[in-house]
């Protein structure tokens, strides 16, 4: 009975023998579409599929055998052997030859939808992200690497950001409705400034969810700007085109929304520096203005005015003294002259005494002095009137005449001879005469 149970190895070896001895499976021709394409150690690993089914495929040491770079969605023609991989008990086609068979059917559909949406303007709605993002809506799977990458990146760069996670099915049949529902919820909640739709890398089929018209419409209708971060850098989906921004990976999406913090910081630094410079400029302008005035002030010291006043005062004083002295001198000279004249003509003592007392007058008292002088002048004129009476001409008016010969006044008759011509001077004129006899 025991012998009826085979080991797995025995079964797999048996099946492998069956495959390997089937003359049809040893060399078959197969056509299909590449998906789940991977390269590892110079080997291609992928699936070949049609609309309903798939088979695993492997192509060892592909380099010499192939003339193009295969990728997901490529329709290909294959030659090879179908056999069992004993270790896993899976059958697969070991490809020996691969050529392109036109563009893959799904890819064609993708291109058609893309064209249609582009024509309808779905790709033209690119809203700028808010300058500062503090509230982020996140549409992605609640588990897995993507959510972790995003949260880590944001925590590192902008830990204060609030993240509203809408756990979403990102793969399979339910994915489309789940994504659409959460886009609508985020819009109803109005908690987020930006929505990120994120999904990790996957096959063209895995990402096909994001090539549906339904999701494209939901993204287009979102009132909140959407960042699409689907798959790896080389993956492009319709969702990417419709979104306000497309980024290569979920991590980049996290960087984009938190990059604003760096910009904000730079902006603040810039403004700080600017404010500081402006303030400095204001200060220097005020300082300059003040220094200008202060300089002016220093030139306006009353010292000069004081010195000038001193000079003017001294000059006036000197002039005053000089004038005063000259007046006094003049008066003194007049006085001396008067005295001399009076002396000469024997003025009476009274006058002399007056004159002498005048000399003794205090010279500092100009007014008194002046009065004395005036008095003296009056006395002088009185004296002069007296003198006038003593004038010889006055004597002649009484009938006397002066006789002159050759210009000499003749005081004696003996001084004249016969025929001398004499000049007789009268008070009112003169006549000539000659001497008749002795």
């Amino acid at each position: 009975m025991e012998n009826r149970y085979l080991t797995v190895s025995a079964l797999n070896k048996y099946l492998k023998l069956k495959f390997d001895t089937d003359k049809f499976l040893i060399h078959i021709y197969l056509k299909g579409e590449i998906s789940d394409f991977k390269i590892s150690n110079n080997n291609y690993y992928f699936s070949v599929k049609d609309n309903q089914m798939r088979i695993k495929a492997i192509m060892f040491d592909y380099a010499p055998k192939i003339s193009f770079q295969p990728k997901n969605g490529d329709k290909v023609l294959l030659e090879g052997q179908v056999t069992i991989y004993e270790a896993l008990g899976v059958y697969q086609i070991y490809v020996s030859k691969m050529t392109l068979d036109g563009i893959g059917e799904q890819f064609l559909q993708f291109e058609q939808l893309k064209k249609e949406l582009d024509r309808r303007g779905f790709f033209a709605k690119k809203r700028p992200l808010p300058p500062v993002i503090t509230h982020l809506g996140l549409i992605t799977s609640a588990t897995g690497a993507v959510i972790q990458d995003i949260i880590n990146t944001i925590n590192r760069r902008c830990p204060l950001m609030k993240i509203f996670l809408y756990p979403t099915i990102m793969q399979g049949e339910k994915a489309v409705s789940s994504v659409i529902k959460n886009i609508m919820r985020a819009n109803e909640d109005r908690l987020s400034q930006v929505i990120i739709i994120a999904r990790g890398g996957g096959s063209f089929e895995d990402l096909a969810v994001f090539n549906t018209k339904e999701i494209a419409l939901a993204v287009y209708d979102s009132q909140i700007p959407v960042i699409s971060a689907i798959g790896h850098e080389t993956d492009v989906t319709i969702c990417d085109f419709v979104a306000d921004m497309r980024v290569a990976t979920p991590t980049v999406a996290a960087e984009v929304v938190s990059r604003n913090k760096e910009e904000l910081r730079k902006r603040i630094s810039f403004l700080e520096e600017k404010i500081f410079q402006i303030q400095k400029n204001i200060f220097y302008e005020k300082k300059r203005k003040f220094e200008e005035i202060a300089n002016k002030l220093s030139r306006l010291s009353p010292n000069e005015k004081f010195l000038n006043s001193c000079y003017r005062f001294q000059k006036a004083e000197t002039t005053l003294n000089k004038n005063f002295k000259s007046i006094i001198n003049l008066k003194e000279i007049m006085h001396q002259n008067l005295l001399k004249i009076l002396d000469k003509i024997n003025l009476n003592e009274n006058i002399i005494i007056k004159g002498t007392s005048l000399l003794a007058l205090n010279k500092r008292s100009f007014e008194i002095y002046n009065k004395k002088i005036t008095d003296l002048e009056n006395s002088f004129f009185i004296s002069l009137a007296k003198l006038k009476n003593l004038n010889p001409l006055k004597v002649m008016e009484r009938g006397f005449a002066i006789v002159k010969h050759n210009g000499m006044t003749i005081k004696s008759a003996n001084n004249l001879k016969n025929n001398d011509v004499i000049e007789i001077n009268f008070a009112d004129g003169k006549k000539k005469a000659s001497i008749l006899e002795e």
Partner: protein
Amino acid sequence: MDCTFEEALVQLEGLVDELENKDINLEEAISKYNEALRVSKICYEKLNEAKLIIANMEEKGADSSDKED
């Protein structure tokens, strides 16, 4: 007197204008000049004060930017 720098400066400008008038008499000139020196001192003190504050801010600014990151 508690006034702003600008007020003091305007006052100083006024005094300088008056001092520039050639007809001003000596007593007035001395009195205005003394007043001008006093106001000028106020201006100077206020400028120094501002300078200190700015220098302080510059230091603080440098400090805070060091602390960043």
